[in-house]
């Protein structure tokens, strides 16, 4: 009983201390947030004056309060060109960039990650090597931040480290590398084309997806090879089919038709049908019409949508089939309904 009394007293004491701490913290944080907000309001015109550069005396940025950094970092992602350069200069002058560079080797993971993010947004291409080194950081969050930062910094030299980071001992997630490569733009394309044939399965999937989003016509032959080779995984072939659809070249029609007619995988046939719809080649009409009789609902729906996208010829096929009663007719009617709705003038609900 004595132990229980002691434990109850201890727990009650902790409860009292927490109640007090919460009340005090609430009051103090409310005051601090109000003060921060006031400072930000005062500093915003200073930043606007810097951006305007109307020939007047340049505001003193070195001696301004720390809240100026928050205002500048908040504006930076929204700006491009000369304005962005002005703000980068301000951050460099105030020592923000130097502090972030030092923080890249900080003990706390969140410090390294925030430093990488800041350098990606504010420091251009000067820190590519340091950021690339963080792709092998012990913290997954830091590796992710480094990948994003390399994409934002825009240095083509980051392409190879990014692709390599996909299959290291401490891999960076595929989606993050993909977003960074997209941020880097067309300079990444040659390395991605090479990865289509030399990379491992995961790298190839990512390369195919990114090349498709870029609409890279030069990658189409390699993508067709991936699509038609049964030895590759369904995921890779499906990504290749989707990429060919985005590229939109009618040269891919034959390969896509073959897959739609002959693959065992419903998921692959669905993506092939969607790709044929994107390509919009009338030569796909026969394969898509046959696909309307597929046993899988998702393949029928994709074929019907693709026929609707082929124009008058495909829509005529749908109209002819829509009078029936089977699943093909249902798919045809659904596609025609969707087409009719998409042609209506839009009125907003609010």
């Amino acid at each position, binding site marked *: *009983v004595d132990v*229980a*009394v002691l*434990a*109850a007293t201890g*727990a*009650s004491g*902790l*409860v009292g201390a*927490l*109640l007090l*701490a*919460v*009340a005090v*913290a*609430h009051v103090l*944080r*409310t005051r601090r947030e109000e003060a921060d907000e006031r400072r930000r309001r005062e500093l915003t015109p200073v930043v606007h004056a810097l951006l305007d550069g109307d020939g007047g005396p340049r505001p003193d940025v070195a001696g301004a309060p720390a809240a100026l950094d928050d205002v500048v970092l908040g504006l930076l*992602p929204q700006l491009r060109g000369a304005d962005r350069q002005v703000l980068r200069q301000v951050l460099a002058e105030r020592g923000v960039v130097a502090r972030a560079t030092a923080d890249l080797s900080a003990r*706390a993971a*969140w410090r390294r*990650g*925030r430093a990488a*993010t800041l350098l990606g947004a504010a420091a251009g291409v000067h820190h590519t090597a340091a950021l690339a080194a963080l792709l092998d950081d012990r913290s997954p*969050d830091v590796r*992710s*931040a480094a990948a*994003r930062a390399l*994409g*934002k910094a825009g240095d083509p030299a980051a392409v190879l480290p990014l692709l390599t980071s996909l299959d290291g001992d401490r891999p960076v*997630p*595929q*989606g*993050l590398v*993909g*977003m960074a490569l*997209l*941020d880097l733009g067309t300079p990444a394309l040659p390395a991605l084309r090479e990865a289509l044939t030399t990379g491992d399965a*995961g790298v190839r999937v990512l390369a195919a*997806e990114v090349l498709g*989003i870029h609409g890279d016509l030069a990658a189409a032959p390699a993508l067709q090879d991936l699509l038609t080779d049964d030895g590759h995984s369904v995921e890779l072939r499906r990504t290749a089919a989707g990429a060919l659809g985005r590229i939109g070249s009618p040269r891919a029609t034959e390969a896509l038709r073959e897959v739609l007619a002959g693959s065992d995988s419903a*998921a692959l046939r669905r993506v092939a049908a969607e790709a044929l719809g994107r390509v919009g080649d009338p030569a796909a009409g026969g394969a898509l019409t046959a696909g309307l009789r597929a046993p899988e*609902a*998702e393949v029928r*729906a994709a074929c*019907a949508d693709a026929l609707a996208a082929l124009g008058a010829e495909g829509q005529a096929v749908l109209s002819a089939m829509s009078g029936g009663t089977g699943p093909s007719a*249902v*798919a045809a*009617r*659904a596609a*025609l*309904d*969707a087409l009719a*709705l998409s042609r*209506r003038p*839009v*009125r*907003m*609900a*609010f």
Partner: protein
Amino acid sequence: MREVFTDVVVSAGWVVLGYVLLLDVTMLLLVLTGARRVSLSRRWSGAEGHSEIFASPLTPAVSLLIPAHDEEAGILDTLAAALGQRYPALEVILVDDGSTDRTFELVAARYELAEVTPRPTASLPVDGEILSVHRARTGDPLTVVRKSSVGRRSDALNAALNLARHPLVCMVDADSLLEEDALLRVARPFVEDPANVVAAGGVIRAVNGAHTDRGTVLEPRLSKHWLVRIQTVEYLRSFLLGRTGWADAHALLIISGAFGLFRRDLVVEVGGLDPHSLAEDAELVVTLQEHLRRHRRPHRVVFVPEPVCWTEVPETWGVLGRQRRRWAHGLGQLLWKHRRMIGNPRYGPVGLLALPFFLIFEFLGPVVEVFGLASIALAGGLGLLDLGTVAVMIGLALSVGTLLSVTAIAVEEFTYRRYRRGRDVVALLAAGVIENVGFRQAHAWFRLRGLLAALTRRNPVWTPMPRTGFSGAEPQQAREALPAS
């Protein structure tokens, strides 16, 4: 004889006290683990890359699935919040599951619905009859399915899954409001780690009392009802910190039906939602993990502590009792269905940690709490225990329980700080203290009845919760949207 009886009763009292303390201390550890994770994630605030995810063509499209039964009080707000998500590609599929009020009429008028031929993408079994499918003519990506109700939320969700077109599906309750960035934040793990992430859950908070306008929570406020205030504390403790702690231990068992994101292909692969489960949300998560573990396929179930879904919680004891009985009944069904996973190392932390915890503390807990309390009260009343000992026992249990609740509120204040008004914080603290007197015991009673229903294999019944709508929402405005007749 009296001495033996006294010994038994006293021992039972200490065993019950030990059990309650063990439960509270385990929860406290979970809350502290969750608090550490939340605190760390707050340090990354602004550096998570959400803008990049919004702008990325690699971000997977999402189908938001909303089952609705008699939801005229708030359905337009819920849809406004869903359609107003800051997300690059989404569609909303609302299932009007046999509503007898004007749920469909309100939506039809606001979004100028036109009947279309259904475009199925899957063939999951649905018991209710699909009456018609409609699309919005206002340009919103909204599909509305009308079906007859069979009294089960899972049936409506399976009907929606059959029409979902996108690779991710997000299940949202019709009495819930998503914050503008909620979907973007909860989808982040899928974008960053598409090969492994199969499901993600977000934070649920009580919307009752909050100031809202057209589906947007303008200012979180605490309800005037103490029952709601106590549930607000409960949601903070269990749905924010508890689940963050479980996710950290790779043992997350529940993603709330009010707000969860899943890979559509996998949900279809496991046959959709279990039509007979009363806890279909938890059931789906466990089934997915069981299926993927069995086939040795990579998978991660994550909990993102930031995205917020505001949901209506019960305001009366009657409705709360029905809800909690249903949850306990559903938990019993789940544990029975997946009994082979309990304590089985093949299923990792889910089998070794989460399921045994739910069996011992969540499912059997009410038995110990209700009978333990009754025996202590009886022993005190009959003079078998001296009142000082009874007071110490009850005082210890109450003080540790209160410590748990107040810790959760402190974490909220030091991290997210959603409640800005001082009076709300004071009320929240008071609710954390009084939760342990009355609410906790009544809650144990409701759960005990649910447990009995599960053990006697009573027919599962989904009882709809009466809706009050969202504060600040004006039903008259909604009604004005109807054409004059």
